[in-house]
């Protein structure tokens, strides 16, 4: 049920926007380069070349690794590896507040982030700030669960994995509107 709503909203948003860009795929004749020349430089990328860096995760879950995590474990990891900068409950700072459950507060995951997969992707690639890229996938799932639970986005005890994480519906998604401005006199 949750998953269905999520899918519809996403595809409607993205389709309506992408349609503005449909003159694809015409090579640009500008810049004095013959529009069809192919130079064949570099070398073919092997699966190993790609796999060493391909860590991105999409809202539909593409890119999520195996493994799972729960908030209870995430809380312990957070205390060890994150609390020094974000506070024990994620709001005491000194760096970004990570928990917010109503729109009057500072923008944070609970009231501003439109997709739960982004929490996983960002923590895995960029945190902890002083030791980025050192967390295991299990740790990232656990930390994601801890933060989503603290933001009251998921029910206590929810297990997050490659199937359940993309199905999480974020409260802020409904606030997101695509930029459809294309210049001209209107101020928006």
């Amino acid at each position, binding site marked *: 049920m949750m998953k269905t709503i999520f899918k519809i909203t996403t595809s409607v948003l993205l389709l309506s926007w992408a349609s503005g860009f449909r003159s694809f795929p015409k090579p640009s004749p500008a810049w004095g380069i013959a529009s069809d020349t192919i130079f064949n430089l570099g070398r073919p990328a092997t699966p190993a070349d790609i796999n060493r860096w391909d860590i*991105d995760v999409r*809202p539909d879950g593409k890119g999520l690794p195996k493994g799972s995590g729960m908030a209870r474990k995430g809380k312990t990891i957070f205390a060890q590896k994150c609390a020094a900068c974000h506070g024990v409950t994620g709001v005491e700072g000194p760096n970004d507040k990570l928990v917010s459950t109503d729109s009057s507060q500072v923008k944070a995951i609970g009231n501003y982030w*439109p997709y739960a997969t982004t929490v996983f992707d960002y923590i895995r690639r*960029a945190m902890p700030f002083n030791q980025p890229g050192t967390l295991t996938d299990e740790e990232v799932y656990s930390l994601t669960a801890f933060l989503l639970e603290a933001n009251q986005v998921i029910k206590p005890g929810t297990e997050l994995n490659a199937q359940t994480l993309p199905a999480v519906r974020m409260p802020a998604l409904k606030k*997101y509107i695509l930029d459809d401005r294309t210049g*001209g*006199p209107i101020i928006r």
Partner: protein
Amino acid sequence: MKVLPGEKPTLLHTKVSRRKLLGGAAAAAIVLVEAPFASAVQMAVTQAELTDPTKIPGVPPGQVGTRSAFEKPVKKPSDISSRTPLQDLFGTITPSDLHFERNHNGVPAIDPAKHELVIHGMVEKPIVLTLADLKRFPSVTRICFLECSGNFRSGSEKLSPQDICGLTSQSEWTGVMLSTIFRQVGVDPKATWFLAEGSDAAVMTRSIPVQKGWDDAMIVYAQNGEAIRPEQGYPFRLFLPGYEGNMSIKWLRRIEFSDAPYLTREETSKYTEPVKDGKIRYFSFDIDARSIITFPAYPAQVQKGWIEIRGIAWSGRGKVQRVEISTDAGKSWHSASLNGPVLDKAHTGFRYLWQWNGRETEIQSRVTDETGYRQPTYQELVTARGSKGGYHFNPITGWILKPDGRVLLSNG
């Protein structure tokens, strides 16, 4: 140190006395003088010798140039960014060492011989490119501005152009058109987006419409005639003319084609702006047209009489069409002269000659771009968006000229 008849005419070959080397009562300054065998020594000179440059041989040619010791333009760094001193610059090219910086976890040290760019995803032929490979493609050189979309500050009348909007700079960029590379990898027609990823400690990622790659996107490895600086993405970066700076991923290491965007942290939690009715606007890529008077502006001190009002204007949607100046706080407007050639998606200089009668007044500039979009007032923006700031906030800036010649930010 006078050169007497029969004495050797240059200090380079003069035996330097111990008194002069260490400085004595007569010493007014210490200058650098090249001694025999190409070593430089510090030398004390008298006031007369210092003030008359024709009485002392100058510094010989060097390996790299230096700024005059009397000129000290500096960026203004914080933990996360560093701002261009717009009020200290002339013309429209930002000296590379004064180009603004915004990074999300420092500037990485990258050995170009070890750095690779992987291009994969929805393509026929995934490839790996090095800097050397990129330089073998046909090159394109283009002058463009680059601006961070979070480029608005207010809150004090003592803010300079650097403080208000120093997160914009302009360079001549050289590199390869992304479309040239797109053709080689054979982009799947069903791919609508690509993810660009940096090799910094933030492993910065943004989703970019494939169409931008076909239109005018580049991978650039040079800036203002030399290799791009580490702060700007050495050995190479993505460059998306007219788009908010964060998307021009520095230290580029990966491009992945996809049939959907990724909604990364930098395109959701950040680089989105609150608009009317509690909505959050995302994927706002284009930089809206903006202008700012850089002279006279805080902290300049001016005198009544002729003043050439100068500044820069730009738009991410094309060329600057017109800049207007008001010298009566926005009541009446007059066209400024544009310093041509006016380039697409580029800072464009403007000037307006004006005679100030010495009475307090407010001067403003506003730009109209080729789409017909005119830079709004602060109030117009606040009314349209229902918020007093945020990303892509480009209001008219006003400067108050005080009778004593001080120039202060209006509504600071």
